[in-house]
């Protein structure tokens, strides 16, 4: 107990054990990160999610925007089950994501040397999602133009589907990417846009959640848990509503 007041005063003191230790309260550990029992501890803030603004374009240029819209709208087309990916805001979603930490691959280990490993060793690519889109869209469109004399956006829906099917099965090799990898990137992101919380710009009016019957950001199902094997028809809610509440 005495020791704590010493620390607070920043004094040099003898250790509690045998040898005397020299204590210089210099590092971050001493200024802000020492939490002492018996006092109030304050947690680090968790920032609230920032709602995506659909009127702002943050990452794509016009050509890229059109291309992503065309691709996403084949991956999740408009039909009797829902509006299309772009109508659901999936392009706004990925535009926002690519401009932020996700686009920059802030979580990834990016130290070299870079080598291709076995299948078990996972993705060894040095490219961030932002770089994959910037380069990949360019390479896809160049390839498409060489093949059909038309941009992907100008192809019929049937031709677009046929092209994407070949991409998916890894039939094309672009200068930097295998088409299967690029396709996987697009598919993962369009589904994220369609099914993530609307606060991130996609899943507008919770259209993706309504399609499958997912109630969204609800945190208490105690009243429903005993109602087994029944259709529940619970109206979904979004974090946007929770933050306003």
């Amino acid at each position, binding site marked *: 107990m005495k020791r704590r007041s010493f620390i607070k005063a920043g004094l040099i003191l003898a250790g509690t054990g045998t040898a005397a230790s020299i204590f210089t309260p210099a590092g971050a550990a001493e200024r802000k990160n020492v939490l002492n029992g018996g006092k109030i501890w304050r947690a680090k803030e968790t920032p609230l999610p920032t709602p995506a603004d659909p009127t702002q374009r943050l990452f794509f240029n016009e050509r890229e925007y059109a291309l992503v819209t065309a691709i996403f709208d084949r991956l999740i087309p408009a039909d009797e089950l829902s509006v299309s990916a772009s109508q659901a805001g999936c392009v706004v979603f990925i535009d926002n994501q690519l401009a932020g930490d996700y686009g920059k691959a802030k979580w990834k280990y990016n130290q070299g040397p870079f080598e291709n490993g076995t299948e*078990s060793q996972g993705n060894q690519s040095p490219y961030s999602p932002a770089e994959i889109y910037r380069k990949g869209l360019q390479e896809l469109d160049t390839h498409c133009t060489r093949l059909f004399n038309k941009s992907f956006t100008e192809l019929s829906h049937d031709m677009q589907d046929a092209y994407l099917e070949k991409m998916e099965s890894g039939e094309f090799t672009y200068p930097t990417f295998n088409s299967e990898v690029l396709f996987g990137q697009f598919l993962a992101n369009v589904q994220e846009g369609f099914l993530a919380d609307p606060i991130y710009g996609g899943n507008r009016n919770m259209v993706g959640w309504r399609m499958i019957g997912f109630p969204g950001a609800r*945190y208490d199902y105690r009243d429903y848990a005993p109602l087994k094997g029944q259709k529940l028809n619970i109206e979904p809610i979004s974090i946007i509503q929770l933050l306003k509440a």
Partner: protein
Amino acid sequence: MNYTRPKADAVIIGLGWAGSLMAEELTRAGLNVVAIERGPWEQTQTNFSPAIAADELRYGVRREILKPPRVETLTFRNDSSQKALPARDWNAFQMGYSVGGAGKHWAANAWRFNPSDFEMATRLRDRYHNMKLADGLIVQDWGVSYAELEPFYDRVEKIAGISGKAGVINGVTQSGGNPFEGSRSSEYPTPPLIRSHWNDKFHQITEKMGFHPFPIPAGTIGAPYTNPLGVNLAPCTYCGYCGFYGCGNWSKSSPNVCVIPALMDRTNFTLLTECTALYIDKAEDGKTVSGVTFRDSDGNTGFQPADIVCLSAYQLDNVRLLLLSKIGKAYDPVTGEGTLGRAYNYQTMSMGYLYYENEHMNPFISTGALSTQIDDFNGDNFDHSGLGFLGGAGIQALSDQGTPLSMTDRLPPGSKMWGSAWKKTFQKSYQNYAKIQGQGTSYSHRDSYLSLDPNYKDENGQPLLRLTFDYNQNDRLMARFIRDRIEDICKVSGATSWETEAFPDKHNSPFRAYDSSHTIGGAVMGLDPATSVLNRYQQHWDAHNLFVLGASSYPNNGGYNPTITLSALTLWTAHAIVNDYLKNPGSLVR
């Protein structure tokens, strides 16, 4: 700049389940304890508020509360002939990155191991008379028995408020529980959660087949509860945001909720946050360690001297810190010498994916550990004579998955993954998908081990840990056996279609979906210093004031999740420190 902090009685590296339980025991015994944690301190009400917690993109997909590979990752290869390459992206292993460690984002499956798991070498000798096993398989006893651990299992369950139904109390079988479990001294502190529709179906199917289904024990609280440390826990609300998420309801057991609020009141406890342990310092006497060198968030290096050092980081980090500290002899797979990094093992999964019609599974009403299980084929609960393998798996109907992005590819075999066809299939399978998980044992093998990587470093410039691992023949035989038992269940399940698989039929990879985060061993406990790093009290054979806590101590994995066992082992060690070691510092094996 370097600085030295005032000496502590004990320093603890890592404040997850093991570290916080040890801190609780040692501070209660009056010791001056300093804990070093590389992440920040987080509080339930502030950091996992229900207003923001139900966010699959942020937590489930972008994994915001996990330790990013950028900070520290590992390198991986299947065998010694390959060059290990860094796990650059998110993978199966889910390390914590704040106070509470992985105990904050765990799915909360709260098992005791089977008594046989602790003494399989003895069983092999006595029950199977040295049955022929796969060449190179490592089978050794832990040096501690289930009976010795029982009081500590009991204490941990009460601290964590575990929900469940006992199967055996004081040797007497109870109806509704697991008849194969080791005998318990008391009932679970809170009752089991309401079963899911899929849990109920599985219960009916397996009971009809003559098996013994029961609700699994879970760290999701079954009823309002006050734990022995005076902390109030709330009942689970089935929101389904467990694994990868912090719980905003005070209803998932975690160090943050169950232990740390009590620690915060103790004036002999100090926590250094955002400080990364770099290595443990050896003392000049050659028989002890003197403290821990760490780097703080300003980039300065500090030294925390202490009389006792408890290493309680994640299993992989425990082994890495021992290797970086050059304490103990690193394992050499060629000569078979050295114990540190030896006996790494994992978890051996077999799965069944089922698709029904018109079931309204309502998968969003779930928890990370809402399972009904049969243990008829787990551990040594069945006769292995002539099978050629040891171990088995718990086979469970697991209702842990209802968030949509985690289910976009849970579709019947051959389904199209995009377009209108995908939308239609996904809409249907979302309400009709069910999963049977065979969570299996893992035995270590001479070819699988942990070492320091010669090529890749972390952001502090220290070598990454290198994992050399693939499934061994015992894993393959066991997993196929379990897969076939799952297939038997699928055939009578009433499902329209299903797929089953044994994971060891392919090479192991941390990048495979739906695998396990349960990395085990590498600094194991045992009775013989030639085959273990720690003695039966998790005390280092080469440094008597160093205790290593966590799943790194397990020479083999059980067919269960490892958290409660490592927590019970922590209390077993704490008991030995407080009652014996403090009075007479030295080896506890006398």
